[in-house]
């Protein structure tokens, strides 16, 4: 997922989702979905720090 988005976008989205859940802006029905989304963003950020996107030699998005 989200191969195209940058670390900063993913991180900002993650902050946003967490804030929404904290502020109870999320319907209970969609909570599971939002937690899943946040988990994906966490995995994305963690793996982004541990792999080099596009390797050296490819233009940065």
């Amino acid at each position, binding site marked *: 997922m989200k191969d195209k988005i940058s670390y900063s976008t993913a*991180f900002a989205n993650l902050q946003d989702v*967490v804030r929404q859940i904290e502020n109870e802006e*999320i319907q209970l029905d969609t909570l599971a979905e939002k937690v899943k989304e*946040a988990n994906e963003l966490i995995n994305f950020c*963690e793996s*982004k720090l541990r792999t*080099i*996107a596009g390797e*050296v030699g490819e233009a940065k998005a």
Partner: protein
Amino acid sequence: MPAIQRLSEVVTEIEDSIRNRFSGRTFWIQAEIADVKKYTDKKWCFLKFTEKSGNLIVTELKGVFWSNTYAAITNFEQATGQVFASGLEITCQVRVKFHQRYGLNLEVIDIDYAYAVGKLEMERKLIIDQLLREQVIVQDESSGRYFSNNNRLPLPLLFQRIALITAPDSDGQRDFQKVIRNNKYGFAFSVTEFLSQIQGDTASRMILERLSQVQAAQSKFDIVVIARGGGSDTDFKSFNDYELAKAVAGFPLPVLTGIGHDRNTSITDLVARQMRTPTEVATFILEHHMSLDREVDELKKRLYRAADLRIERAKNMLEAYQQRINNLSPATILKKGFAILSIDGKIVTNPDLIAVNATIQATLKNVVIESTVTKKNENENER
């Protein structure tokens, strides 16, 4: 046939004359040095003192440091941040010595570092003034710090793709790579080495060439590191070069310098982001990624806390409703001592439907009592 003398007789006479004339005397001289040969194991140094008129050497005399004064060279290098090498102009104290085999020499007793330091400072100031004049750098009035376009560039979020300009097989290269490679957090970095001479006369030109190679592949890199490592190495003259400083100041990617000198800040350091050593640069990069990782971890904790809390609250709310419903249920009412009246299995709420002699059932908590109505009176309390 004139009287023939042995060589040694003549040379001894020369020696005597010189000793008579110069014994016990010392001189302070200022001269350029050339053909410097250091024997670090023996702590000897041979050189030539020269004086030029234009480009022409008009005076030249051999000079020597013996082991008892060799420390002056080391001190000089530490004080000035440059290697004691041919081409330098130095001020030093000497005495005149003549040796039957090795001839006339100036034995160096001491070097005046202040002169050399002052000269370097002046050169440095001239370059800084020029950069200021050309608005390559500006000086912050309150802090005295110098700012260039480069050291004001925002740092990228990730420093993963690093262009490393360093000397091949050097301490700087090893120190930097060691920290980056041995990170135990599994962070990924790609370090592309641009090898260059990092000291000596041609070093600034070579570093400039490497910089333009990096620039040609600019999109492949996040940052540039210039690393020069330690030891007794003191020559960082190449980093006080006008052209190099100007190129770094205008470089489109952030440049981090770790050129390993405690006391001196080179002009290249001034226009870039200066760290003391290659190890410090690598640590800075690593710590940056650690802090990003911690931020994600913190959000992860907040996420689980918030989600748990959300579910917990919903549960509590459900329980509260459950409680209210329970309170209203017949079972709860019966527990409180009330009874339900019914006739033929149908609950009766209208007393008019209950006639005297009718058979009614009173349902209590645990029993059903069947009884016959004998009398009906108005409820005095409800009147």
